């Protein structure tokens, strides 16, 4: 792949496809232009990242569009689209990309030292590396490595923290894989360390403040075109960090749909390596840096929660460092579980790139997209395929979720709280803590024991993964580990032990961490085991 050439080719392709879709009639062109002007001006009124240059650009477009012929309006639309495409692409640096892809992963520092801008943030380096070393890679890593050579990988992880993309980035690097193209929010680029990696290691820019449909389509198209050109892609199909702490069950399907389009494009173009493989991935922390902000946001009345949060823990570098160091001191591992790679129809794929049915019989996946014997697009059909794929991704999320002591203990204490206060609404319970400020540790141990047994049963059926500490089946150990974590980071420990009693201080956090179990069947019915 020639990256330099591709960067320009991506722009050309994106512009052409958007023009094909949006400039169908003179009326459509005009509507698209004025919608963008309206949406962008609204954004510029409040956006701190907005510039006069941007405002001038839209003033210019408006002045010209009002008097333009249909042909001239088409050109103005093309100008807007190209601007969007270039904004999304950012300053792609092929040199860095090449260095990163060609290096044998001997150590992070080896790579980083070859990159001069990193010296700017050298102070943070050790911590970044220690965070990376905390990551424990599990699951189908070998299969992923093999398939990455045969087709385009679309990696779709669960999302709980802004640290996710960094961890996944390092993990891919450890696996000897090239950087993945990844759409990162503009706020992440603002952070020096992360911004540096994102910029140069395949990230493109997503400006969530831009609301124009055309812009959203440009993002999707950009991702699709990179997939077609064989760049592995990474995106979080949950769309945003999980607010409740639960693993995502509803996915945004736009980018998964872009993968389907890319695949069909590849087939119709008769490409040699047309295949796109989807790899679900779960990222499992004991503690989540932004937990307090996220659950707080979740608990705000529905509809009022914020899609973009920019003033959270992540925006305070000192806090991030503190967090990473504490995790390191606790030897707290972050489990990154790579799921079974699938084709775009939800079928598993083996190491030769062959799709299989549930009995291991080979399938000709190209036949799903045939129309009268030739590969072709069918909007409605492809949307349904994408729905099926999303369901398959969610199933793997559930199966590959690693339950950790903090999750388990939080769940058990929340359940006790609810049972002890049957008449109390959730919000009041969270605020007041109900009638008992503490529970007998012995009783909590007993309950932990029975929940662990139920979880062991689920784990033996492959429905969930349990952390080592839980597999030991010793409630005292599990509690010890959970408390050790909760006591170190969050300003107010969610739980504390005093003598033979367990005190709950921050129910919001208990709810957040406990929700990670919420999707498993032990919670069905009354929420009891």
């Amino acid at each position, binding site marked *: 792949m020639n990256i330099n050439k591709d960067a320009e080719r991506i722009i050309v392709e994106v512009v052409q496809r958007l023009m094909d879709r949006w400039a169908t009639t003179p009326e459509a062109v005009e509507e698209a232009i004025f919608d963008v002007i309206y949406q962008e001006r609204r954004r510029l009124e409040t956006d701190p990242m907005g510039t006069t240059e941007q405002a001038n650009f839209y003033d210019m477009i408006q002045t010209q569009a009002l008097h333009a012929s249909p042909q001239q309006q088409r050109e103005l639309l093309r100008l807007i689209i190209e601007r969007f495409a270039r904004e999304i692409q950012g300053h792609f640096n092929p040199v860095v990309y090449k260095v990163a892809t060609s290096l044998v992963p001997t150590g992070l520092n080896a790579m980083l030292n070859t990159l001069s801008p990193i010296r700017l943030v050298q102070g943070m380096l050790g911590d970044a590396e220690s965070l990376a070393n905390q990551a424990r890679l599990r699951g189908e890593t070998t299969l992923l490595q093999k398939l990455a050579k045969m087709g385009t990988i679309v990696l779709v992880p669960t999302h709980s923290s802004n640290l996710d993309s960094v961890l996944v980035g390092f993990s891919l690097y450890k696996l000897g894989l090239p950087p993945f193209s990844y759409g990162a929010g503009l706020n992440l680029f603002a952070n020096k360390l992360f911004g540096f990696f994102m910029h140069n290691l395949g990230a493109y820019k997503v400006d969530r403040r831009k609301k124009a449909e055309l812009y959203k389509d440009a993002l999707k198209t950009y991702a699709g075109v990179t997939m077609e050109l064989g760049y592995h892609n990474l995106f979080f199909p949950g769309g945003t960090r999980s607010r409740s702490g639960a693993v995502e069950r509803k996915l945004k399907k736009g980018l998964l749909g872009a993968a389907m389009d890319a695949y069909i494009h590849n087939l119709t173009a008769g490409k040699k390596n047309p295949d796109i493989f989807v790899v679900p991935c779960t990222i499992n922390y004991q503690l989540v840096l932004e937990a307090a902000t996220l659950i707080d946001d979740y608990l705000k009345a529905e509809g009022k929660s914020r899609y973009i949060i920019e003033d959270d823990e992540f925006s305070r570098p000192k806090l991030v460092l503190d967090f990473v160091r504490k995790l390191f001191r606790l030897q707290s591992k972050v489990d990154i579980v790579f799921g079974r790679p699938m084709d775009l*129809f939800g*079928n598993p794929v083996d190491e030769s790139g062959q799709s299989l*049915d*549930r*009995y291991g*019989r080979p*399938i*000709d*996946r190209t*036949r*799903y*997209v*045939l129309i009268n*014997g030739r590969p072709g697009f*069918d909007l*409605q*059909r492809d949307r*349904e*395929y994408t*729905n*099926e794929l999303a369901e398959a991704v969610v199933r793997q999320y559930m199966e590959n979720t690693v339950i950790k002591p903090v999750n388990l203990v939080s769940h058990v204490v929340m359940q006790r709280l609810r049972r002890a206060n049957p008449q109390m609404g959730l919000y009041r319970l969270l605020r007041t803590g109900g009638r008992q400020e503490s529970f007998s540790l012995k009783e909590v141990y007993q309950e932990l024991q029975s929940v662990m047994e139920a979880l062991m049963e689920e784990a033996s059926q492959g429905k969930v993964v349990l952390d080592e500490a839980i597999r030991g089946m010793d409630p005292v150990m599990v509690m010890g580990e959970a408390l050790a974590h909760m006591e170190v980071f969050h300003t107010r420990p969610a739980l504390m032990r005093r003598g033979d009693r367990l005190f709950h201080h921050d129910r919001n956090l208990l709810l957040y961490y406990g929700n990670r179990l919420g999707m498993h069947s032990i919670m069905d*019915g009354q929420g009891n085991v």
Partner: protein
Amino acid sequence: MSDRRFDVVVVGAGAFGTTLATILTQAGRRVLLNTRRQEQADEINHKHTNERYSPGFKLPKKLVADTDLHGAIKQTDLVLMVVPSKYFRPVARAVGEVIQGDQVLLHATKGIQIEPFKLMSDILHEETVALKIGVLSGPNLSREIMAGKPAGAVIASRFDEVIKRSQALFEGSLLRTYEARDVIGVEVGGSFKNIIALAAGAADGMELGDNLKSLLLTRGLTEMMRFGTALGAKPLTFMGLAGIGDLMATCASRLSRNNQVGYRMARGESLEEIQASTNHVAEGVTTVKAVLNRSLELGLDLHVVKGVYKGLYEGYTAREAMQWMMSGKPGKEIDIDVRGCL
């Protein structure tokens, strides 16, 4: 790429499979009827009859029957499975050995797998790689259609293509087909009504009159809706052909197998005696188990379902079962959340 010699392969040469194959052949489609038994295939090919399942009817000469399932599926774009629920999974598995992603897989089976609870479309998902799956259901008494009388059915699928291709298949046939998206609703409707038909047949057998029968049907319908919506169906689906439409035909007609079973039980025959005397499968007899188990898991109290279950499996006579159904405190008449269904 396979050679597509047939417009449709109908899998299962029971009464309804034979009926569908017949009307499609009459409408000019190239139909291959797949059956397990060679002598049945020979009878259809040479004598143009299927005496065991469609006694007294002549089948079209152009209708071809065969026992080679794999060979058959390779020769079509559309497979239509009409197999009793009891054999549905093994047959689906066999279909799954050859069917590919471009082919449409439609079924017309009105039943549910008991343990674990599975709708037929779930089984097709599990046993095959086909995604373009759909269901055909409605008031379709085989003998009436075989006698040349027109009828209507609904075809439900998440895929436009499945609906379009299936509708094109039935165009010009005795079956008018309507389109729907709610696969779960259509499958639940077609299966659940067999339970109600058992109760309605029993009421007839005891000569309890039309008022009571109407009561059973109506209460049964609300139970069908409560059950279906709990599984994710849309309530309005049950107002359609697969719900009330099928219910009316099945419960009114002595041609319905389930209605017959209820009727004969009320007249003093045992379930075993009835089953031993017929080639046909009364799906309601097993569906009631599946529905009862699942309704308990869902926390639903389905009175008609429980009454039928008692009559079939708990040693209640038909009269005792009916008395049980009439006992207990009546609740709200309509107890379904219809928000979002309009």
